């Protein structure tokens, strides 16, 4: 009788233990999921933006058309769908060489992003956009 009791007790404790470990495993994963990604710019990317884009795409820019389309200093204030739309567009226009505008590059050749910088910019914009997009 005692043996059976101990056996059952062990069984119950075993179950509880298993349950705990499962719960332990679950919690961190759920936290990662519910913690939404937010817009951020690593230093090396910020340097490229500052050199090649921000002059026209900032709220204090004199380029009315450029800042009307995109303002980096107010980027995080936009709604999520807007941030993702603009990021995907940034990746596209940089990849296709549409930005910075050719006239700007002619006037300021040293402000043209190098091939390596372009690649870095495109990669950042694409990955940031993906992180900000909720699962399908």
């Amino acid at each position, binding site marked *: 009788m005692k043996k059976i009791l101990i056996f059952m007790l062990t069984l119950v404790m075993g179950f509880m233990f298993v349950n705990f470990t499962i719960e332990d495993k679950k919690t961190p994963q759920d936290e990662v999921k519910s913690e939404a990604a937010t817009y951020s710019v690593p230093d090396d990317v910020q340097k490229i933006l500052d050199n090649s884009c921000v002059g026209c795409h900032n709220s204090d820019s004199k380029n009315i058309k450029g800042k009307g389309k995109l303002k980096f200093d107010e980027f995080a204030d936009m709604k999520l*769908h807007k941030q*993702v739309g*603009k990021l*995907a567009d940034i990746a*596209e226009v940089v990849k296709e060489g549409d930005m910075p505008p050719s006239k700007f590059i002619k006037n300021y050749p040293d402000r043209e992003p190098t091939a390596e910088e372009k690649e870095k910019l495109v990669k950042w914009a694409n990955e940031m956009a993906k992180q900000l997009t*909720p699962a*399908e």
Partner: protein
Amino acid sequence: MKILKLLILILIISVVIIQFIPNDKPEVVLANENDLIYNNQLPENISVMLKESCYDCHSNETVYPWYSHVAPVSWLVVKDIRDGRKELNFSFWESQSKMDKAKHLDNIIDEVLDENMPMPIYTIMHANAKLTKEERQLLADWAERHAESLFE
């Protein structure tokens, strides 16, 4: 006088000859399972605007007008349709990621409010494709709402 007649003759002959230069028109497909309008319950006025002002160039449902069969105009028409479909094709809408939908919806707002789209040359021949300022705003507001709904 003789020279003028000769020139006109040469012109007519050239126009006839260029009709035989092959100019492959992008294919027309009417049933597209990933189509934007087919898969979403868009407000009636929005789907009408998209169909009448955009679908000839941005979908597989192109309706070719009579002049699109006559060279050299046909070359221009075909080029716009080919380029338009490549940039944005509403017939394949649902096959893209949310990220690309957000990008296209954002571009639609810009292009429509800046009056770049529908292409001005197109509305000369398609009066019903012309959009008023109010209609442009309605379309832009819809694009904004639709993008937002994808992220809720």
